[in-house]
């Protein structure tokens, strides 16, 4: 096991471990892409990578800096229109895992990627939904990746872009959402998981060197902590070697 690693490296390794072989993953750029390719190199050689740009079964020979990189097309299994991506793959329930991030995440795993401040008078205008809203609705399960800090995990979102386990008091079931929604939030200090009964995000495991108090101090709501907190193993030497020397040697996303 490595002892010298960055929080980003740990997050990528933890995310990669979530992926089973042959699963169909809707891949985002950055840490999700690194996590998927790390999983492919270790336990999930037949992971199927789908990008919202229409590349299916991509095997990028370089690190893609956008989800429409030409390296995602060359050597892929299929290229399809975006209408097919969203209707035949995503809405049709074929995507098993979706990755999401966001500027703000609340206790139910709802995400804001739209605006800080008021929609009509924004302090900071963010990019918006992209495919996030529909990934949150339809992927069989969603993994959120985000670094912890109080502004990123507020008590109230400024805008609800992508639905989590409970939106404005209603459950996913009540709202008729097909997918299981965000079941884990992979942070830089530990893992939150949605409570199977209430859907609330609960601290369930810590990374080496972190305490529950540190995590709670970075979350804007009274964070519940599981009685028996898990301990997440640090990155293995293999994980670190792949991330640093093969997957992101220029530290584009592991900086």
């Amino acid at each position: 096991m490595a002892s010298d690693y960055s929080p980003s490296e740990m997050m990528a390794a933890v995310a990669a471990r979530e992926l089973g072989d042959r699963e169909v993953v809707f891949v985002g750029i950055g840490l999700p892409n690194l996590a998927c390719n790390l999983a492919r190199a270790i336990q999930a050689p037949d992971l199927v990578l789908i990008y919202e740009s229409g590349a299916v079964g991509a095997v990028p020979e370089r690190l893609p800096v956008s989800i429409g990189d030409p390296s995602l097309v060359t050597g892929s299994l299929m290229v399809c229109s975006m209408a097919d991506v969203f209707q035949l793959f995503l809405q049709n329930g074929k995507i098993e895992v979706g990755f999401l991030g966001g500027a703000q995440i609340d206790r139910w795993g709802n995400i804001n990627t739209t605006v800080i401040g008021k929609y009509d008078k924004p302090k900071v205008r963010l990019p918006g939904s992209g495919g996030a809203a529909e990934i949150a609705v339809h992927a069989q399960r969603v993994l959120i990746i985000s670094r912890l800090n109080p502004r990123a995990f507020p008590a109230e979102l400024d805008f609800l872009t992508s639905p989590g386990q409970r939106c404005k008091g209603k459950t996913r079931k009540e709202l008729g959402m097909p997918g299981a929604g965000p079941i884990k939030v992979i942070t830089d200090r530990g893992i939150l998981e949605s409570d199977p009964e209430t859907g609330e995000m609960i601290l369930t495991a810590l990374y080496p060197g972190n305490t529950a108090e540190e995590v709670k101090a970075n979350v804007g709501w009274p964070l519940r902590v599981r009685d028996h907190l898990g301990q997440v193993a640090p990155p293995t030497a293999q994980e670190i070697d792949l991330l640093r020397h093969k997957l992101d040697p220029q530290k584009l996303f592991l900086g």
Partner: protein
Amino acid sequence: MDSKVVSMKGAIAAHVRDGDTVVIEGFTHLINFAAGHEIIRQRRKDLTLCRLTPDLIYDQMIAAGCAKKLVFSWAGNPGAGSLHAFRRAVEKGTPPLEIEEYSHFGMVARMSAGAASLPFWPMRNYMGTDLPVVNPRIRTVTCPYTGEELATVPALNPDVTIIAAQRADRLGNAQVWGLLGVQKEAAFASKRVIVVVEELVDESVIRSDPNRTLIPGMIVDAVVVEPWGCHPSYAQGFYDRDNDFYVAWEDISRDAAKLQAYLDEWVHGVTDRAAYMAKQPELKQRLTAKAQMCEGVNYGF
């Protein structure tokens, strides 16, 4: 039949008018910057610009004062930062810009409805979110079989759609490979269509492989032959994406004066795409695609 091949200058002059609803599509791949630059040079204004990802080209058009309104689903500079002209317009109102916002699926569905000449498209989406709260054009319909409520978006039918393709014949029968985005739907939804190609080919090339045709000439009004017309976006098999320029845009667009200087030099300061390319001869060396040919298939019977 008469050729539809015209210059970019001629195509924009004839088909893009002040106040038009304009779509330049292409998802990362085949975004036709050359057309956007010509629209800026011809100083079109009051345009309603629609795209899933405004990308650098709409950021430039917003900064140049062409846009009255933006209809979009993701306004960022992928992997590199923000679209700062867009942000200045939305955050500070300089210049003022109306926005109408969907998700990617919503924008794709709007164009699918437009292309099918249906007034709306149904989807399972948006439940519990704030998108329908700020955008009253996201509505619902009740399924006549199950009784369930589904989200709807209204058709988008642009006045003009500009798409890029690797090749077309002189009548606009256009073939594309690599990422296809939502170009087919955007073109079929549009009143007028401009196709910009890397390579003009004989009709026999198109007819040799009809399954590659994305856009039929019958819906095309103008064909523009513009090699490297998508830079800094890319054309699979022709040239790579200029990721360095996307990164550089963060710095250029953050400073309004710097952005105007960029437009002065690289848009107003050149007459056309050929001049733009002549100013930076190193691009071809850096970005020309390597050969990775596939085999043909048999169309015989």
